[in-house]
C-alpha cells in the first residue's frame, strides 16, 4: 500500500519535474540567503558571508541533482538525456547514421516481410474451427459406381479397395469424414460466359471443416446422386460479384449448360479448396455424373476430423493398423505387386493421417524455410556490418570518451551512452523497416505465385509486429553491446594524449573488426552459395528437354458445355476449328489435345497389358490422352518411330494409338513397339501402336515424363480440350487467330487460358522462379552490404594509420609496399571468411536438396564461382581506399601531428 503511494508520488514528481525542480531551487536559494543573513548578523562581512554561505552549500547544482535523484526514475531521466545526446550526435553524422539505419531498415524490413509470408503460409492455423483436429488421410479411394448397365473398364474383377467407407466405419476415431476435388466450370452469363472455380464436395465436407452456411443449407447425402436435382452452394465472393448480395437461395443458375438451384451461400472468407467460387455435390460412390462437367475425373482429397479426445497421432496409428490388415488380406500373385501396395508405400512414408495443414503446405515448406533462412542470413550480415561500423565509430571517439571519463563519467554511464546510441539506431532502423515491410511484402507476394503463398493472404499483424520489434531490440543490443564495451575498455588519460589512436587499443579494434568482416564474408558466402545452387538449378531446368518445342506455339483451352453438343458434334466442331486454323497463312500446324504439357491437373491413368510377355511392368498405369493428326507437329513433339495419326485413324474400329518413349521403354524395352499391340481394362480388342513420340513432361519440368498413350481425338470426342497452333505470326496475331477460329465455329463457346506455350512453361516454373529470384536478391543484397562493410573497415584503417603510412613512405616504402601492407590483412580476413563460409555452406546445403534440380548440394561450379565472385568484390572494395593510402604525402601527415 505504502509502496504504491510512494510510486504514485514518484510518478507525480516525474510529471511535474520542471515545476518541482524550480521549487527545490527556490527553497535552497532561500536557505543560502538566510544562511548569509545569519552570518552577517554574527558580524561577518557581507561579501564574505555570501561566499561562505555558498561554499557551505557546496556545489548547488550537485546538491539539486542529488536531491532530485531522491525522486527516483534517475535512470529513466538519464536515459532521456542520453537519447537527446545520442540524437544530437547522430544528426551530426548523417553519413554514418543513414548507412546504419538504411542497412538495418532493409534487414529488418525484409525479415519482417518474409516472416509474414511464412507466417501466413505455415504458422497460422487454417481458417477453420479447431483446425488442428483436421487430417488428410493418404491413399484413400473414393468408390465408383458405373451405374446399371454401364461397364467399368477396370483392371479385372472389382476388388474390395481401401476407401472412404473404411474411414466412415471408424466413428470412434474420426468424427467426420469428407472428400473434395477442385475444378473449373462455365457459368453462363448474359454478357459473357464466365469460368468459375468449383469445389466438388461430399455432403459432410462443410460439417467436417466446421463451417455453416450464411444463408440456406449445404449438401445432403442424397444430393449429387444420379437423378437428384442439381444443386449448388455459392461463395460469399460470387454472391456479391455476380448477384450483388441479393436473395438468391432457390434461384437457378446455368453452369456448363445445366441448371443448378442455389441452395446456400457460404460466409465471407470461406473459399476452400483453392479459391472456390461455388460448390457442387459429390456423391459416394461417385458416378459418371459426378465429374461429367470436368474431365470425367478429378483428383479428390479425403479429409477427416478426429473424434473428440482422440489425438491426431492416435488416429494415425489406428488408421495405419487398419491399412496393415487390409494389405495383408490382399490376394497375392507370385512375382506381381498389387497396385494398392504402391499406395501403401506412400502411406508408410507420409503417414496414414497427416495433418491437413501439413498436407496443404506440402512442398512449399522447404522453399519457404530456406527463404526465411536466407532472410535471416541477410539480417545477420546487416547486424554484423553495423557492429563493425559502430566499432570504427566508437574507436574514432576514443578521445571524446576519455574526456568524458576524466570529467567524472563512470564506465557504466559511458556504456549506457553508447548503448543508447545503438538502441536509437536500431529503433529507427526497425521503425523504418516495419514501415517498409508492407511494401516489401507486396513485392514479395507479387514475386511469389499462389503456389508458394499460403491459404490466407499474408499481412502484417500483431504477431508479425511483435516479431519485428523483438528483432529490432535484439539486433540493437547485439550489435551495440560489444562496441560499447570495446570502446570503453581502456578509456584513460593516455587515450587523450594518444591522438589519432594508433597503439594497442586501435590494434585491438582492428582485430575485432577483422573478425567481424570475416564473419560477414562467411555469411555472404553461404548466401551466395545458396543463390548459386538455385541459379544453377534454374539453368539446368531451362536446359531440360521438355519433349516439346514451346517457340511460336499458342494455345487456348475450353470445355464444351454439357448437352450443348453430341459427341459426334463435338468431334465435328473440333475438326472445323483445326481446319480453319490450318488454312491461315502463317500457321504451319494446328491441332487438338486433351492435356497440354506441364498442365497435369486431371486426366486418368489406366492399367495396360502389353503383348510382350517377357516384361512385367512395375507400374502398368499409363496416362491416357487424345490428340488430333497435327497436334504433335503443332506442339513440336518429335516423332521417334512410325507415324502420326491420320484422319483415317478416326474411323470406328481403327483402334490405334501413339505411345511415348517412356511407355515404349517400359513395355517393350529394346524393341520396336510399332505395330505391337496392348489392351487396357476389360477391353478385349487389342490396340495397335502406329507411332512413338518423344516423352513430354507433364507435371512440371522437373519431373520425368510419365508413360503416356495418345488416342485419336475422334475416338472419344472429349469435353475438355486445348487447341494448339504453331506459326510464324506474332504471338498476338496467333492468339487472335485461335479465338477467332473457336468463335467462328461456336460464338457461345467460352474459352480460357489463351496464351503462348512459353507462358505455360512460365507458369509451371513460377514458384521455382520466385524462390530463385528471392534468394538471388538476398544474395545480391548481402554482397552489397558486406562489400560496403569491407570498404568502411579499410577506409577506417587507412585513416587511422595515415601517420604510420606516412612514416613508411618517408622511409622509402614504395606504393606497392604500402598497398601490400594495407591489403595484406584484408587478404587473410577474406580467405578465412570465404573458407569458413564455404565450409558451413558445404555442410548445410543438405537443407536445400529438395529445392535443387539437376545439381547436387555440393555442386562444384557453385562452390567455386560464389567464393570467387565474393573475393573479387572484396578486392575491389579494399583496393579503392587502399590506393588512397598510397597517395599519402608523408610531409603533410607529419605536419598534421
Amino acid at each position, binding site marked *: 500500500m505504502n509502496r504504491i503511494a510512494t510510486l504514485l*508520488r514518484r510518478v507525480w*514528481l516525474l510529471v511535474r519535474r520542471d515545476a518541482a525542480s524550480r521549487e527545490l531551487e527556490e527553497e535552497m536559494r*532561500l*536557505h543560502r540567503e538566510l544562511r548569509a543573513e545569519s552570518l552577517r548578523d554574527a558580524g561577518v562581512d557581507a561579501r564574505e558571508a555570501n561566499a561562505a554561505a555558498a561554499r557551505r552549500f557546496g556545489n548547488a547544482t550537485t*546538491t539539486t541533482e542529488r*536531491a532530485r535523484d*531522491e525522486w527516483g526514475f534517475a535512470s529513466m531521466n538519464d536515459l532521456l538525456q542520453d537519447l537527446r545526446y545520442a540524437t544530437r550526435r547522430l544528426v551530426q553524422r548523417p553519413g554514418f547514421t543513414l548507412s546504419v539505419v538504411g542497412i538495418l531498415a532493409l534487414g529488418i524490413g525484409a525479415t519482417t516481410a518474409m516472416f509474414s509470408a511464412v507466417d501466413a503460409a505455415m504458422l497460422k492455423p487454417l481458417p477453420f474451427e479447431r483446425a488442428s483436429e483436421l487430417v488428410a488421410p493418404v491413399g484413400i479411394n473414393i468408390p465408383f459406381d458405373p451405374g446399371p448397365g454401364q461397364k467399368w473398364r477396370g483392371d479385372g474383377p472389382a476388388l474390395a479397395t481401401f476407401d472412404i467407407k473404411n474411414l466412415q466405419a471408424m466413428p470412434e476415431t474420426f468424427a467426420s469424414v469428407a472428400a473434395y476435388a477442385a475444378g473449373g466450370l462455365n457459368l453462363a452469363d448474359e454478357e459473357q460466359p464466365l469460368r468459375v472455380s468449383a469445389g466438388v464436395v461430399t455432403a459432410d465436407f462443410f460439417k467436417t471443416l466446421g463451417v455453416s452456411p450464411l444463408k440456406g443449407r449445404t449438401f445432403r447425402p442424397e444430393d449429387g446422386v444420379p437423378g437428384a436435382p442439381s444443386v449448388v452452394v455459392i461463395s460469399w465472393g460470387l454472391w456479391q460479384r455476380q448477384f450483388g448480395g441479393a436473395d438468391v437461395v432457390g434461384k437457378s443458375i446455368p453452369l456448363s449448360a445445366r441448371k443448378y438451384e442455389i441452395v446456400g451461400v457460404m460466409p465471407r472468407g470461406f473459399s476452400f479448396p483453392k479459391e472456390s467460387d461455388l460448390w457442387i455435390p459429390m456423391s459416394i460412390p461417385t458416378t459418371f455424373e459426378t465429374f461429367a462437367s470436368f474431365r470425367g475425373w478429378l483428383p479428390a482429397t479425403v479429409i477427416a476430423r478426429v473424434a473428440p479426445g482422440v489425438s491426431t497421432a492416435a488416429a494415425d496409428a489406428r488408421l495405419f493398423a487398419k491399412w496393415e490388415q487390409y494389405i495383408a488380406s490382399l490376394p497375392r500373385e507370385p512375382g506381381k505387386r498389387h497396385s494398392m501396395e504402391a499406395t501403401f508405400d506412400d502411406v508408410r512414408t507420409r503417414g496414414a493421417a497427416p495433418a491437413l495443414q501439413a498436407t496443404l503446405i506440402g512442398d512449399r515448406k522447404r522453399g519457404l524455410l530456406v527463404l526465411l533462412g536466407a532472410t535471416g542470413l541477410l539480417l545477420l550480415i546487416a547486424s554484423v556490418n553495423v557492429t563493425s561500423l559502430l566499432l570504427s565509430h566508437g574507436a574514432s571517439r576514443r578521445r571524446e570518451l576519455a574526456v568524458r571519463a576524466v570529467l567524472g563519467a563512470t564506465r557504466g554511464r559511458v556504456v549506457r551512452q553508447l548503448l543508447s546510441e545503438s538502441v536509437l539506431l536500431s529503433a529507427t532502423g526497425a521503425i523504418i523497416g516495419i514501415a517498409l515491410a508492407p511494401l516489401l511484402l507486396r513485392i514479395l507476394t507479387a514475386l511469389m505465385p499462389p503456389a508458394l503463398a499460403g491459404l490466407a493472404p499474408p499481412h502484417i499483424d500483431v504477431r508479425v509486429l511483435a516479431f519485428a520489434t523483438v528483432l529490432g531490440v535484439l539486433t540493437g543490443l547485439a550489435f551495440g553491446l560489444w562496441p560499447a564495451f570495446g570502446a570503453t575498455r581502456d578509456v584513460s588519460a593516455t587515450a587523450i594524449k594518444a591522438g589519432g589512436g594508433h597503439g594497442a587499443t586501435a590494434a585491438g579494434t582492428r582485430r575485432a573488426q577483422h573478425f567481424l568482416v570475416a564473419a560477414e564474408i562467411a555469411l555472404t558466402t553461404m548466401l551466395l552459395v545458396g543463390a548459386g545452387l538455385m541459379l544453377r538449378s534454374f539453368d539446368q531446368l531451362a536446359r531440360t528437354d521438355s519433349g516439346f518445342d514451346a517457340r511460336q506455339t499458342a494455345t487456348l483451352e475450353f470445355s464444351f458445355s454439357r448437352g450443348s453438343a453430341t459427341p459426334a458434334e463435338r468431334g465435328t466442331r473440333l475438326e472445323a476449328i483445326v481446319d480453319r486454323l490450318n488454312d491461315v497463312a502463317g500457321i504451319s500446324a494446328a491441332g487438338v489435345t486433351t492435356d497440354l504439357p506441364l498442365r497435369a491437373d486431371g486426366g486418368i491413368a489406366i492399367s495396360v497389358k502389353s503383348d510382350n510377355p517377357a516384361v512385367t511392368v512395375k507400374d502398368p498405369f499409363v496416362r491416357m490422352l487424345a490428340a488430333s493428326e497435327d497436334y504433335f507437329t503443332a506442339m513440336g513433339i518429335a516423332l521417334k518411330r512410325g507415324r502420326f495419326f491420320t484422319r483415317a485413324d478416326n474411323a470406328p474400329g481403327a483402334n490405334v494409338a501413339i505411345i511415348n518413349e517412356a511407355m515404349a521403354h517400359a513395355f517393350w524395352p529394346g524393341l520396336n513397339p510399332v505395330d505391337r499391340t496392348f489392351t487396357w481394362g476389360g477391353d478385349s480388342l487389342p490396340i495397335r501402336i502406329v507411332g512413338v513420340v518423344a516423352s513430354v513432361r507433364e507435371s512440371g519440368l522437373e519431373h520425368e515424363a510419365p508413360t503416356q498413350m495418345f488416342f485419336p481425338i475422334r475416338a472419344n470426342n472429349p469435353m475438355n480440350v486445348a487447341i494448339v497452333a504453331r506459326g510464324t505470326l506474332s504471338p498476338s496475331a496467333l492468339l487472335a487467330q485461335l479465338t477467332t477460329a473457336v468463335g467462328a465455329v461456336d460464338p457461345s463457346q467460352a474459352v480460357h487460358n489463351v496464351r503462348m506455350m512459353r507462358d505455360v512453361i512460365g507458369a509451371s516454373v513460377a514458384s521455382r522462379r520466385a524462390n530463385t529470384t528471392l534468394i538471388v536478391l538476398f544474395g545480391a543484397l548481402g554482397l552489397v552490404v558486406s562489400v560496403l562493410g569491407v570498404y568502411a573497415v579499410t577506409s577506417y584503417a587507412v585513416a587511422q594509420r595515415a601517420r604510420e603510412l606516412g612514416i613508411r613512405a618517408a622511409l622509402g616504402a614504395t606504393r606497392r609496399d604500402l598497398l601490400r601492407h594495407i591489403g595484406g590483412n584484408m587478404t587473410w580476413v577474406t580467405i578465412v571468411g570465404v573458407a569458413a563460409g564455404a565450409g558451413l555452406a558445404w555442410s548445410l546445403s543438405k537443407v536445400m536438396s529438395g529445392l535443387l534440380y539437376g545439381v547436387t548440394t555440393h555442386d562444384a561450379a557453385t562452390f567455386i564461382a560464389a567464393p570467387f565472385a565474393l573475393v573479387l568484390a572484396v578486392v575491389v572494395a579494399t583496393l579503392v581506399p587502399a590506393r588512397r593510402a598510397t597517395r599519402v604525402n608523408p610531409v603533410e601527415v607529419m605536419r598534421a601531428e
Partner: protein
Amino acid sequence: MNTPTSRTEIPPGTLDMLILKTLARDGELHGFEIAQAIERTSVGVFLVEEGSLYPALQRMLVKGWLSGEWGRTSDNRRARYYRATAAGKRQLEQEIREYERAANAISRVLRAAPAGA
C-alpha cells in the same frame, strides 16, 4: 557558536531521525529552520550539510514521512514548511528504537571489562 572545526558530521543514517524528531517536536519548519534547530539542539556539535539536508527532505517527501506546504516566513518570504506525517512519526519511533538498541550495544562493547580480568 562553536567554530566549524570542532563540529561533527552527523553519523550516517541518523539524519532522517534527527529531522523527524525536530519536526515532531517543533511542528512546522522550513529547511533552514530545520538545519538551525538541529545545530542548536545539538549545542553546535552537529553540522547539517545542506548537501545532505535537501536530498534527505526530498527522500522523506517521496516516502510520505513528511508533507511540505508552501507558506510565508515572518519577513514574508516564500518557504516550504515541512511537517511530519503520521507515517513519519511511526518511522521516527522505529528509528529511535533501533538507534537505542544499537547505541546500548555499542556502549556495552566499549565498557566491557578485559577478558579474564
